[in-house]
């Protein structure tokens, strides 16, 4: 297996495999330099799939300590059902690392500096709403799309007849995967749907995320 060369100085911690692919596609599309197997020596940061929110939160501090070369760590997490709770638990971790977090997370994403260290936080979908990666992806559906309203009404019908097997917490997943299954290549994963341009990247939230990545890792 090819190995990523050199010790990266910056890391982006992600909750799962889907996030990993979405971020890679977004960066590729928007020209944000990222270090990966295709670009093993360049790029400004490497992504790490932490396999779950608990693992992600648990390893932030150890990642900072893992090497004196690590100067910047960004995290992208889902707000899930309670943005405020997610933010509060992040604030504790951030404070323990000697950064000074603001009362609320800025809508543009958070970037903090302390001595020569830098830390960034983005809470999906947009630092402002409850939800998850799939909500963010639904923002990327083109504005004039005709299928998305049909997805919503279809799901509503199913729910009204109690035929849905998904819990309502995961409705965003049902929405985006239904929509993706109706595209030219049914079943295209979210990351690839960005590359194939089923999804657009000119949405406001998407631009903010790209800006946050650039500002956090380009220095």
């Amino acid at each position, binding site marked *: 297996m090819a190995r990523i060369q050199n010790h990266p100085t910056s890391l982006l911690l992600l909750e799962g495999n889907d996030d990993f692919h979405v971020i890679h596609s977004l960066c590729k599309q928007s020209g944000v330099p990222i270090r990966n197997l295709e670009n093993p020596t360049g790029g400004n940061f490497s992504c790490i799939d*932490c396999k779950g929110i608990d693992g992600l939160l648990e*390893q932030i501090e150890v990642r900072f*300590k*893992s090497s*004196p070369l690590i100067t910047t760590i960004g995290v992208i997490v889902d707000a899930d059902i309670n943005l405020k709770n997610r933010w509060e638990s992040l604030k504790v971790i951030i404070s323990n690392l000697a950064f000074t977090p603001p009362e609320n997370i800025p809508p543009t994403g958070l970037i903090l500096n302390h001595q020569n260290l830098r830390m960034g936080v983005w809470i999906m979908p947009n630092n402002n709403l409850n939800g998850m990666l799939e909500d963010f992806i639904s923002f990327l559906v083109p504005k004039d799309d005709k299928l998305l309203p049909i997805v919503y009404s279809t799901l509503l019908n199913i729910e009204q007849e109690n035929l849905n097997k998904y819990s309502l917490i995961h409705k965003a997943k049902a929405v985006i995967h239904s929509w993706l299954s109706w595209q030219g290549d049914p079943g295209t994963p979210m990351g690839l749907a960005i590359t194939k341009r089923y999804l657009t990247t000119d949405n406001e939230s998407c631009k903010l995320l790209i800006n946050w990545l650039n500002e956090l890792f380009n220095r």
Partner: protein
Amino acid sequence: MLDSLYIKNYRNLQALTISSLSRVNLIIGKNNTGKSTILEAIAIYASKGDLNLIYELISERGENFKVTEANKNATEANMRTFSSLFSNRIVSFEHEEAISIGNVEASLFGLQQSTEKLISLRFIRYFDEIQRDSQTITSRKRILIDGEELNKQFVNFKVGLEIRVGQDSYLLPLDEDRPMRFGFKGLGNNERVQFIRTRNIDKAINGKLWDNITLTEKEQFVIDALKIIEPSTERIAFIEENLRERTSVIKLSNSNRVFPLRSMGDGINRILTIILALVNSDNGFLLIDEFENGLHHTVQEQLWEIIFQLSQRLNVQVFATTHSEDCIIGFENTLNNNSNLLGGKLIRLDNINGIIKQVEFNANELRIANDYNIEIR
């Protein structure tokens, strides 16, 4: 036991603070980050400034300069010798440039050096004033140049090395050629400390350490440890090889003969050295430089287990250094697999533009690094 460590101006450790220490502490880091230097500093601290130990540490690095035909100035040679202990080999009479080694305590201003048990070493200028009390009795009074007079110019002063522990101090005059043994063996009750250097398997020392524990339960601890490598170990003994040397022999359960231990390879001899040192450091310190020397990776984890258990039982605080990944893995596994064995810590030293900085990992952080495959070496 040291709960934390502060080292200032000792060799390449200009200002190192380790905020908390554990019972068993493993120190890692690239070359020239001061791993062995920390062990030396702890040895000096534990010995309360024993000059024989200090001189041995200097001699090991070949920094013991002697009076020569060309340069008969003993003060110069001695200053050069002892300056090798100080960061950047600085000779200074300022308090700021003194070597200090001790623990830290939390105060209003954050972590501060604790003064109570702190040991410090400093060059000092002084005069010997001869006082004639009567025709026949004279007394010598030592006047130190200190405080406000530090900045003044003096002539004809003498130079000494001041060793200070808390309120007590000792002055070693540097104008004399060094004696064979120093009479000064530290200020106050020194704690027990065993220092296993990279390459010393000193038979004479091991024989003496064995004598100390003969017919105690500690004999069995040593036998148990040797079983890691040779499971049929039954007994060991030290026998006289010649008038000056004794050598260790081993009796195995499946044979009537005894064998010299040195015929059985480096590993078993290294374990003997480590365990003998450990069982001779009750209530003190065990310092092991390059833990992995001579040890196959499969035995390192078992040896850690024994060290964790015995150090707890005998109240020994252990500091070890290593370059070996296997050694670190063995250490982590021992810590993670035995929830009843608390008290292990990994300390990584990094050289950042000439300044040595420490990064501390407690047991939980080591588990996280292990669980998520995070490289911390």
